[in-house]
């Protein structure tokens, strides 16, 4: 059959549809794209609030070159990556154990499930202060460049594991009990049941938890700001804290914007990678 030419009425309807979508698109552009473009534009200029006599000349990629040459930037990137890797893997393992435990039926299960959320519900700044007071009493931890990571990673694990556990628990509850019954009849040991039934079916939930936690760990700010201030020296300074210092403390808007853009690119790449992984995980995870 030959295709029908769109009639006037249909065209009008299409126009109406675009008109109705326009406000939403405009809002998205305004709140997502505008600040981002502004930041990129700012990052191409020398803009130092404290040195207005330098003006705001266009400097091309000079700010980026300076960032990439700065040892403190690479240190901060390494700290962030190391913090994310260490805390997220701990949280995943512990969260998985907790979720498995909570998935069983036992007396007082509701109470346990509720109380496990307490660390997660405490505001980060408050939790960080509590951990700082605890470790300030112990000589040597906060003043040692390696030792200072212990309270940081402990505090983050303590605080974020419940979130991971809850996500994984939801995943566990979606698994059909009949599968375990079948596995038992086939004589599978608990370990083999976990390895070949639970883990593959839990993969989507694990991936979701992984995405949330890695992205958040990459942007870690308040916990370290309060707990170690990035010290001793800059031994525990993550990239978000370095950016904050450049922007809000030194008021170097151009340089700080270049940092922000780089952080955005890295997080964006991470997100893309995870989304592809998640897409695959979701399709393969289905039996």
């Amino acid at each position: 059959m030959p295709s029908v030419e769109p009639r006037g009425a249909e065209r009008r309807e299409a126009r109406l549809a675009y008109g109705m979508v326009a406000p939403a698109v405009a809002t998205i552009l305004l709140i997502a794209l505008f600040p981002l473009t502004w930041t990129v534009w700012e990052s191409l200029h020398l803009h130092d609030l404290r040195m207005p006599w330098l003006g705001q000349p266009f400097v091309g990629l000079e700010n980026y070159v300076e960032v990439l040459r700065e040892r403190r930037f690479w240190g901060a990137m390494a700290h962030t990556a190391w913090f994310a890797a260490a805390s997220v893997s701990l949280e995943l393992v512990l969260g998985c154990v907790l979720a498995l435990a909570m998935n069983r039926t036992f007396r007082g299960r509701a109470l346990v499930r509720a109380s496990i959320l307490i660390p997660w519900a405490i505001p980060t700044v408050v939790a960080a202060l509590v951990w700082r007071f605890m470790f300030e009493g112990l000589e040597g931890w906060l003043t040692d460049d390696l030792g200072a990571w212990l309270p940081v990673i402990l505090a983050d694990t303590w605080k974020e594991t419940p979130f991971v556990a809850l996500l994984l628990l939801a995943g566990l509850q979606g698994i059909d009990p009949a599968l375990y019954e079948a596995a038992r009849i086939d004589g599978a040991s608990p370990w083999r049941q976990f390895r070949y039934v639970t883990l593959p079916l839990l993969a989507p939930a694990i991936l979701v938890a992984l995405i949330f936690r890695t992205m958040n760990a990459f942007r870690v700010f308040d916990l370290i700001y309060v707990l170690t201030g990035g010290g001793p020296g800059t031994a525990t300074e993550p990239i978000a804290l370095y950016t904050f210092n450049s922007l809000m403390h030194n008021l170097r808007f151009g340089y700080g914007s270049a940092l922000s853009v780089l952080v955005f690119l890295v997080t964006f790449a991470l997100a893309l990678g995870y989304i592809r992984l998640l897409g695959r995980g979701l399709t393969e995870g289905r039996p």
Partner: protein
Amino acid sequence: MIPGFHFRLMLWVGLLGCASETRSGPTTVTVSGSVLGAEGQILRRQLERFDREHRDIRVEMQPTPDAADLRHQLYVQWLNARATDPDILQVDAIWTPEFAAAGWILPLDRFAPDTAAFFPVTIEANRWQGELFALPWFVDVGMLYWRTDLFPKPPGTWEELDREARKVVADGSPRYGLVWQGARYEGLVTVFLEYLGGFGGRILEGGRVTVHEPPGVRALTTMRDQIRSGVVPARVLTWHEEEPRFAFQNGEAALMRNWPYAVAPMQDSASSRVAGRFAVAPMPAGAGGRHTAAFGGAQLAINGFTPEAGAAWQVIDYLTSPEQMLERARVVGQFPTRTAVFDDPALAQALPIPPARARQIVEAAVPRPVTPVYTQLSEILQIQLHRALSRQAEPAAALSRAASEMQALLDRVGLGRGGVAVR
């Protein structure tokens, strides 16, 4: 904490501040500064008195945060937006050159201030390119607090201090020899400056960084070795002003480096275990240097965009008059910036420590480098000092790295060796 939120909040506070400005009848002058506690009360009282004596000028107080960093950010945002209020700013000495170079505060020479009446160091710190930009209001200096029941006299040199403190610590009572501000912040730089002066060094000479030269290395090595030998506890590396004060006040430390504010609370026997058992002295000196105190305190400057500069000057002139300084010394224990006030017998009753002692310490005060990029230089130095003290780097290596980064910054903004490009 959400940094962006903070920023915007302060921006709004600033905008509201501008909007509330009204002009009718007498000229209105707004003063911004500390409004908390006794300091806020005395400022209010002094401004009310000024109001009564001057029918043509009305004075209003504009509160600003007490934390120096936050107040600085707020000022920068206001002035960068060319706000005409507040007319008078309470500034730290280290901000004066920065604001002056930006054209944000007015040169005061046109009002012919009597600069000879003030301690030279307080005037020197507020000059930028030969002109005076702020009038010193009160002085803060680093001092050595020592226990009169543990030592017959205060240690005059670092060797003497180490020897005496080690003896005390060996007995275990008190636990700590010397305590100071060792966290990675501005306070650490002021402590270092005092050790540095004690060994005859300087951070900056003209546009040239000299902090990594032998006196600097000796100063930082002394600090590091004191931590290593237990004279100074390693935990000072997370301490600001209040933690050392609590340690000293509870009798846990034999010696402390702190600002004058600590005298009054520690003389209150209800909360202090060392009331009546301590005194203050200049910080010790090492070989080739002299007793040094870091110069801090508050100055008053006039907003560069105010249309009421004349009236603002009258208020500043009033607040920095000898009588008002004497009252501040009596109520909040702040040291006057005018030398003549120290000759006034009334000061002996007003200050909690002998005025001759206070004067001796003020005269040993040195300003931090007078440059518009001071806070950025300081940040670089703070990081490297902290690295050396937390055993991540050797003092010489840390200072070399600090020096090269500081020099690169100065050269980049045209304030380096080649001369001064700022107008």
